[in-house]
């Protein structure tokens, strides 16, 4: 099996399972250098641009002589430069059937090409592509010009590697961190026995909180619990071993590379420590919103500029290991006492004494940039999972707004043929409807079906899978937070919006105005 065959499997399946199986089979069967280079490409570790897009374009223009407009028409119809060239110049009747490894050969060819003078390269490219099949030409160009993507996540590749060699995924991810050198020994290196330090660098199962209702709060003995704010960030464990510092989010995602600033601060921590807490956007003095955090998560490369505009820090609220000793069996108050001696930003912890304290803390939460309070049993030990009687969360009621449905799109999986993804809008100062949220759920199956019928009958315009519909239906949406955003026309971004109610009692004119959101934003903490 070679990379082209792997691509064909990945490109022609939509199920994650099929893709994973394809990857596992490839890693097991392919030449080890081929698989190393493939992993490098599939996990975005290779983005040296050897052939600039502008050069590819020039090559095509030259082949089209004085009809460059015709190439532009082709490009517009295909939508991808590499694919356009592959269709036009590859050998249409060549079938890429060979099992032989191909990536090393391509790598050398790409290197040789990049050494050529642009004029030479431009004139030779079409005939070079004509020696390849269409899929080969497409991949060759994609790999040379950067931006190679085939709908496989880094995580899925790592999972497949782990399965292929029967190893723990977390260990594989650790070993693939940082520089990856694609050579034939890569799998042997990954298969090496796991060291103690590697084991120490792995996160412990997170203790999760259960929601608590107002009546349950009243039944609670306030002297049995500690209260903290519930922060709107990324739950994470910060681990320092003898050799490394790691930051893990829930779901065993190693997000260390995304947060060099947190790692930097953590270097002063005592080693063999595990802290449980929250990654928050901003600084300890000035909190930013979850939106800002997402910017950090989504970037492939964390630049110095980004670290300045979108700083992040770690707020600890629990201590799971200290000096190599597992503290999870100790009661919370003992862990908190130990934590307080560590020099790290910590979440304020209150011993409430009376229920009113909990209530008033919750009232103040939004002003603090928090989304409610956490209530934790003083005597509770730290166990993995959503265990009853340990931690509770008491969230703020969501903010709400009435919005008008303007676009609908078919959902996925079970909802594949139903228009279940709604774009909802509010009115702006010019009396236009501007989108404020995309919501995916909240309606019953029967309601969804009714709406689907209505959407099909009242479509004004279709943009691919998206239908623009008549402004008629109003939905009440709930959301946890609100922030300014330059990416949206409305100028705002909502956090976790979902449909609460179908407001069949009101019309589109009754929907909320952008000023409603502005007001909510100034009520919330300063952003």
């Amino acid at each position, binding site marked *: 099996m070679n990379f082209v065959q792997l691509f064909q499997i990945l*490109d*022609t*399946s*939509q199920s994650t399972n099929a893709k994973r199986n394809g990857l596992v089979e490839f890693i097991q069967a392919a030449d080890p250098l081929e698989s190393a280079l493939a992993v490098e490409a599939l996990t975005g570790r290779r983005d040296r641009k050897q052939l600039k897009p502008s050069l590819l374009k020039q090559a095509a223009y030259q082949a089209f002589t*004085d*009809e460059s*407009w*015709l190439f532009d*028409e*082709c490009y517009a*119809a*295909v*939508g*991808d430069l590499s*694919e*356009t060239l592959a*269709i*036009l110049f590859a050998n*249409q*009747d060549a*079938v890429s059937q060979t099992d032989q490894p191909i990536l090393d050969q391509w790598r050398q060819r790409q290197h040789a090409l990049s050494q050529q003078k642009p004029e030479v390269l431009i004139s030779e490219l079409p005939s070079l592509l004509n020696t390849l099949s269409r899929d080969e030409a*497409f991949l060759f160009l994609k790999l040379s010009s950067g931006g190679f993507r085939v709908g496989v996540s880094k995580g899925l590749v790592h999972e497949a590697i782990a399965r292929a060699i029967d190893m723990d995924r977390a260990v594989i991810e650790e070993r693939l961190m940082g520089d990856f050198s694609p050579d034939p020994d890569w799998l042997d290196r990954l298969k090496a026995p796991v060291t103690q330090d590697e084991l120490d660098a792995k996160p412990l199962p997170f203790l999760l909180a259960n929601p608590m209702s107002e009546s349950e709060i009243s039944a609670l003995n306030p002297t049995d619990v500690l209260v903290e704010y519930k922060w709107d960030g990324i739950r994470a464990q910060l681990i320092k071993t003898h050799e490394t510092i790691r930051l893990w989010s829930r779901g065993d995602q190693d997000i260390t590379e995304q947060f060099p600033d947190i790692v930097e601060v953590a270097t002063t921590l005592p080693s063999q420590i595990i802290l449980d807490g929250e990654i928050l956007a901003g600084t300890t003095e000035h909190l930013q919103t979850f939106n800002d955090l997402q910017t950090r998560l989504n970037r492939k490369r964390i630049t110095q500029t980004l670290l300045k505009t979108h700083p992040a820090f770690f707020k600890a609220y629990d201590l799971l290991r200290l000096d190599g000793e597992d503290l999870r069996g100790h009661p919370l108050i003992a862990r908190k006492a130990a934590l307080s001696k560590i020099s790290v930003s910590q979440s304020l912890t209150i011993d409430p004494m009376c229920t009113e304290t909990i209530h008033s803390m919750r009232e103040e939460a939004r002003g603090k940039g928090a989304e409610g309070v956490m209530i934790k049993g003083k005597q509770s030990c730290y166990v993995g999972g959503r265990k009853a009687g340990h931690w509770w969360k008491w969230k703020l009621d969501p903010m709400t707004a009435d919005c008008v449905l303007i676009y609908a799109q078919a959902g996925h999986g079970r909802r*594949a*043929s139903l228009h279940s993804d709604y774009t909802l809008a509010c009115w702006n100062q010019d009396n236009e409807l501007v989108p404020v949220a995309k919501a995916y759920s909240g309606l019953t199956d029967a309601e969804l079906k009714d709406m689907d019928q209505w959407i099909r009958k009242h479509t004004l315009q279709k943009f*691919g*899978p998206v239908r623009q519909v008549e402004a008629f239906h109003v939905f009440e949406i709930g959301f946890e937070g609100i922030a300014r955003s330059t990416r949206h026309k409305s100028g705002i971004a909502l956090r976790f919006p979902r449909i609460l109610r179908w407001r069949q009692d009101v019309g589109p004119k009754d929907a909320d105005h952008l000023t409603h959101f502005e007001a909510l934003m100034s009520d919330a903490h300063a952003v």
Partner: protein
Amino acid sequence: MLEKRLGPQRIDAHPYGEPFVLGDVQISFHPAGHVLGSAQIRIDDGDAVWVITGDYKRDPDPTCQRFEPIHCDVLITEATFALPIYRWPSMDQVMEHMFRWWDHHIRNQRTPVLLCYSLGKAQRIMAEIRQRSDRSVQVHGAVANLNLEYEKQGVALCPWQRASESDKGVSTDLIIAPPQVAESSFLKRFHPTELAMASGWMQVRGVRRRSAINHGFVISDHADWQSLIQTVQQSEARQIYATHGETRVLTRFLNDHMGVAADRLETAFGIEQGADQ
């Protein structure tokens, strides 16, 4: 076939190549190679010869007579796929690919389903299957009715049966059905299924991926870019009209690059992009 599709009509049939008079002009029909019975129309009024190609293709198709180039003064040509990116691969290659895909999915206990236009495309694929194997298929009712008409005309198709009459469960036969069934309950009896589409539009990866169909086979009953250009050249027409599809691209190319006078011709027929082919 026309009666089946249009209901009872007065239909006068004329064999290919035999001129007849209609009003002031002499008319003859010539093979268009699009589907069984498809014809170009040649119109001669004594001063000039006009040819209307209608939908056509130049690639061989075992279900119909091959396209015949005709000299004329004015040519009205279709332009559905008038972009250089549309170059059809050989049927040998496509069918080999299809058989591999078919076998792969029955090995994995999935029913292979090929979505394609039920008139012409379905029968062409079935005839190609017959020429290369003894494989059998199951077809949707819309395809079955046209199969019967084709067979009446002596077109040899691979063994087939109506899908509605088959057993429930995964089938090792290929299921051939029109694209609309992708969203209907027709395919339920064969679950789990693996969908592919046979169409010229499948030439572009993004089109296939947006359609939520895993696999695409580039099979078209329309002329690709090379065929369109070749037809224009062989006609030696002094004036070309392009209708349907990429008329803007074709006329500009003919005018600017080939020095042939070409204009766009608007018709009352809609463009059925993606819906058929």
